[in-house]
């Protein structure tokens, strides 16, 4: 009986819902402690799930005991488990960070913790869901929570960014919902497992339309070039812990869905034409170059990091022509981990620097960087991962991507990956060089809590250390791989 209570699948959804709502009940600005404690528990659940999935294969949990297609199934295969692991691993340090970042009683942080809790519940629910309509609900949960977090600051710029983001995310999930409606109309079910054989057997035009709508909507939500217009103001304008959450996790959620659909129910459609997988890859390439270019030109630190997200998301889409072999998926997920951890670290570090100097320009960092070596080091390590230099998860991702590309004779992808790394170096070193400039000693630095610096450092170290041991993660992706 009690075994069921320790089942990680429902646990990973119930726990964040519980602490989110508890934080609301505790009152404005409160709820950090239960969040951090419960997040640690979630992390343990995730490790247990990883262990379980590695040992026994994919785990399922039929909610309500009905089973698909009548009920909704939760399902954790290797891919879902990996994403869950990334989510908890990023969220826990960020919770510690946010607790120190928001002053007690700060008006802009009144409802951060409830929003954070529900965001995580949405993310976990999304990764675990095996039901297309349920996915829609989790997608909205994630989207609205993210918009709320961006708007939280309350400034005109933030509200405008939040609105822009809201319209983009609603348009995206609207297209997705229409796709779900068409699929239900065609097959009478929205369960992913039920649909897979049905689509393979017969796919009318309407299903092709549905697939296109869903993928397009999700690409908009992932901010794939040229749908990236909403991302920089939202990620660049929000409070640092929020930017970190959004860049590291939220955009990955819709990417995960694209991958899940592409490899699952929509696989028969994506195989229709050999050039189809090149479309996302092409957009990804454009994203890498455009995002990097804008990052190189950015004046504000957080804008630079936000545009770097646009570029880094491009790598995720380079894998689509390579998904014929497991290596392509492994490269993509390694990149998702590398970027997730590193970008969270980078936004966290930027938050420290901005808090200390009171300004958000790259040129204004010169004095601060020398006074905050740990933060700068964290920024540097995160930068190493983004550039794909060893030893780091980003390097392994680049290695795997190039090798997978060579394995399938896709030279162009290998070249793009190499060029993207060099471009990343340009914008990362633009920031790092500030640390070495000769400057008059800055005396007007605000003191910052040490836990901020250490949280950023922990995330950055994780992104580097993963580069020394990626075996387990890669084995995890074997589980449930159909190809």
């Amino acid at each position, binding site marked *: 009986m009690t075994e069921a209570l320790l089942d990680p699948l429902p646990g990973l959804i119930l726990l964040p819902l519980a602490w989110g709502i508890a934080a609301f009940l505790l009152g404005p600005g409160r709820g950090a402690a239960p969040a951090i404690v419960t997040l640690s528990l979630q992390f343990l659940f995730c490790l247990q799930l990883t262990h379980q999935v590695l040992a026994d294969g994919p785990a399922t949990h039929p909610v309500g005991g009905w089973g698909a297609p009548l009920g909704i199934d939760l399902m954790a295969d290797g891919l879902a488990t990996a994403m869950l692991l990334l989510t908890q691993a990023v969220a826990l340090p960020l919770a510690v960070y946010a607790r120190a970042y928001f002053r007690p009683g700060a008006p802009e942080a009144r409802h951060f913790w409830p929003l954070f809790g529900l965001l995580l519940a949405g993310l976990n629910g999304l990764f675990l869901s095996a039901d297309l*309509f349920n996915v*829609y*609900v989790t997608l*909205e949960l994630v989207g*609205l929570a993210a*918009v*709320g977090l961006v*708007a939280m600051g*309350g*400034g*005109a710029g933030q*509200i*405008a960014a*939040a*609105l*822009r983001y*809201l*319209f983009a995310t*609603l*348009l995206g999930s*609207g*297209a997705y*919902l*229409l796709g*779900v*409606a*068409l699929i*239900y*109309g*065609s097959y*009478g079910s929205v369960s992913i497992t039920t649909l897979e054989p049905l689509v393979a057997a017969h796919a009318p035009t309407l299903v092709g339309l549905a697939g296109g709508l869903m993928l397009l909507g999700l690409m908009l939500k992932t901010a794939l070039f040229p749908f990236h*217009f909403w991302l*920089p*103001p939202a990620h*660049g304008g929000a409070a640092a812990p929020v930017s970190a959450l959004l860049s590291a996790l939220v955009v990955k959620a819709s990417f995960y869905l694209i991958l899940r659909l592409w490899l699952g129910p929509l696989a028969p459609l994506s195989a229709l034409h050999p050039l189809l997988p090149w479309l996302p890859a092409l957009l990804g390439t454009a994203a890498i170059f455009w995002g990097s270019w804008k990052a190189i030109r*950015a*004046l*504000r630190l957080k*804008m630079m990091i936000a545009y770097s997200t646009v570029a880094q998301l491009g790598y995720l889409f380079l894998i689509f022509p390579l998904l014929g072999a497991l290596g392509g998926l492994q490269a993509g997920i390694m990149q998702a981990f590398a970027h997730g951890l590193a970008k969270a670290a980078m936004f966290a570090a930027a938050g420290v620097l901005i808090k200390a100097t009171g300004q958000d320009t790259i040129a204004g960092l010169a004095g601060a960087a020398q006074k905050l070596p740990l933060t700068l080091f964290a920024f540097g390590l995160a930068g190493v991962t983004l550039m794909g230099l060893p030893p780091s998860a980003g390097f392994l991702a680049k290695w795997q991507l190039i090798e997978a590309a060579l394995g399938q004779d896709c030279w162009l992808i290998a070249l793009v990956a190499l060029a993207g790394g060099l471009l990343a170096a340009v914008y990362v070193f633009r920031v790092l060089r500030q640390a070495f400039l000769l400057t008059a000693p800055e005396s007007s630095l605000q003191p910052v809590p040490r836990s901020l610096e250490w949280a950023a450092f922990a995330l950055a170290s994780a992104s580097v250390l993963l580069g020394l041991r990626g075996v387990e993660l890669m084995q995890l992706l074997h589980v449930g791989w159909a190809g």
Partner: protein
Amino acid sequence: MSTGLLFALVGAALFPMGVAGLLVQRHLLRRILAFNLMGSGAFLILVGLAQRQDVADPVPQAMVLTGIVVAVAATALALALTRRLYALTGRLELPDVEHD
């Protein structure tokens, strides 16, 4: 033609109208309305297409109820943000994206 299919076809007309409105309109209230048009289109298709043989199907009906509540939540948030933006800037349009 069955009533269900008719609903679905109306939905097929509403949804693109909503999308176009969302993309073309600049006034925020119009965009919120456009979003609701889009949502209604999707809901009509969800229920209508499933009932194209004119036999009621409770599953999509329940889904649409869920979808409506979600749309209400999103609309409320959009309205709240619009009001806030108006209170702060006196404008009911989004500013152009700053090129930074």
